[in-house]
């Protein structure tokens, strides 16, 4: 134990923690994005609400989600510890410092970008996660006639809804669920929230353009054959595609719904 403690308190050990939690959070983003693409289905949120129920009630996923919350907290705390340590390493600063001539802007501003993301995550979770878990979202019933594939949607009065049900009765599929979809549509009617989400995703982009490849460097992975793939993924998938796809969600609801 004392030896592993030594590793974690060393400079390289702290970097290891940052790297592993960061990569875990990156892998979550992929899953989160794929799931949320269901917001774009034109089914009044049926698939999305069904998925939201599954994600919050399937035990393995619940375990992973707690790991995820822990990762966010650990990543932020270690970032703070490392930053304080780094400040101490240069007590007297330079009068002139031309960082832009030897390094990328994102690499020098990971702390600021990370802080924006932390505020974003707190806002995001209180908007959706907290409301979903504390019964502050509306409820909905979907009845789908399996012969004609016609779905009728009815809003449920809070008192009538007890818990999620999904069954098929007489060739009619009935799903009663919390209507997170409606909560999303409702939240993204506010322009300032949409603007905040787009800003958050811009921060995510810059954070990951540096962070993704940086995590592999920290792990000591710099194989010449594979590093171009890492760089490609870091810039194009994590820096461009994922943030843009996420940002498209509030924009879609604001402008098209």
């Amino acid at each position: 134990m004392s030896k592993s403690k030594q590793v974690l308190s060393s400079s390289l050990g702290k970097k290891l923690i940052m790297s592993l939690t960061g990569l875990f959070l990156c892998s979550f983003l992929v899953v989160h994005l794929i799931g949320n693409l269901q917001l774009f289905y034109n089914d009044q949120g049926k698939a999305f609400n069904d998925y939201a129920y599954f994600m919050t009630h399937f035990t393995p996923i619940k375990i992973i989600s707690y790991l995820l919350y822990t990762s966010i907290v650990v990543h932020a705390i270690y970032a703070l510890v490392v930053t304080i340590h780094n400040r101490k390493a240069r007590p007297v600063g330079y009068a002139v410092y031309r960082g832009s001539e030897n390094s990328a802007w994102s690499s020098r501003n990971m702390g600021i970008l990370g802080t924006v993301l932390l505020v974003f995550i707190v806002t995001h979770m209180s908007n959706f996660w907290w409301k979903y878990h504390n019964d502050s979202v509306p409820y909905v019933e979907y009845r789908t006639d399996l012969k004609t594939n016609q779905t009728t949607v009815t809003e449920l009065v809070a008192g009538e809804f007890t818990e999620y049900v999904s069954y098929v009765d007489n060739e009619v599929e009935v799903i009663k669920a919390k209507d997170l979809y409606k909560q999303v549509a409702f939240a993204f009617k506010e322009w300032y929230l949409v603007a905040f989400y787009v800003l958050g995703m811009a921060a995510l982009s810059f954070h990951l353009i540096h962070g993704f490849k940086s995590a592999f460097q920290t792990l000591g992975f710099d194989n010449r054959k594979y590093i171009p793939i890492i760089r490609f993924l870091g810039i194009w998938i994590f820096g461009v595609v994922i943030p843009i796809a996420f940002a498209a969600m509030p924009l879609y609801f604001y402008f098209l719904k």
Partner: protein
Amino acid sequence: MSGNMNLTLKVWRQKNDKTRGKFITYQANGISQDMSFLEMLDVVNEDLVRKGEDPIYFDHDCREGICGMCSLHINGRPHGPKQGTTTCQLHMRSFHDGQTIVIEPWRAAAFPVIKDLAVDRTAFDRIQHAGGYVNVNTGGVPDANGIPIPKTVADEAFESATCIGCGACVAACKNASAMLFVSAKISQYALLPQGQTERYSRAQAMVAQMDAEGFGNCTNTGACEAECPVGIKLTNIARMNREYLNAKLFKEEEAH
């Protein structure tokens, strides 16, 4: 004289590491473009001595880019505006007439100011002493071809070994991290057959010493690589991470 320049220098003056320093402005007149930056400072110092003032204290030795003694943070960058040069190799033609040049020492807690622009870099020596060596038995001279090693690996080790220990990497890094230096020193031995005996104890000892000296944590900005006068690569840091984590997490407990 044609082509000579008049410059304004803002130089950091500090008595020792116990006192606070401040910038003092000097005029450097009639500076030839062919002078090196250090020769320009010599001219200024001669003038100061003539006036009975305390000359500016700065480090230098070989003045040909091999010893790593010269330092100086010039207009916001270690060793001045050019890449791949030390301050002694920096010519005044990189500046223009009438320019103001701000000259500061390397700034890091682990490099305390000795006086003015000279800093104490013995932290690097202590890191070297912690593990930057190989145990070689004395005896007959080994045959030059006695130890097989691929040319590419030998070249890479040689590239790491070109680090002159100047500390520009620490000076450039926004975190005052010494990881480029330490990783170069770890790499040159980790790659060579002669370095295998102490391979894992070395990585642990040198990293521990680096941390004890109070250098910052690397955040992979790459500023060190860009400012290193001999072009030490960031891949050295990746290798150091690999060596260290491998040592700590696996190799340490492998022998029974």
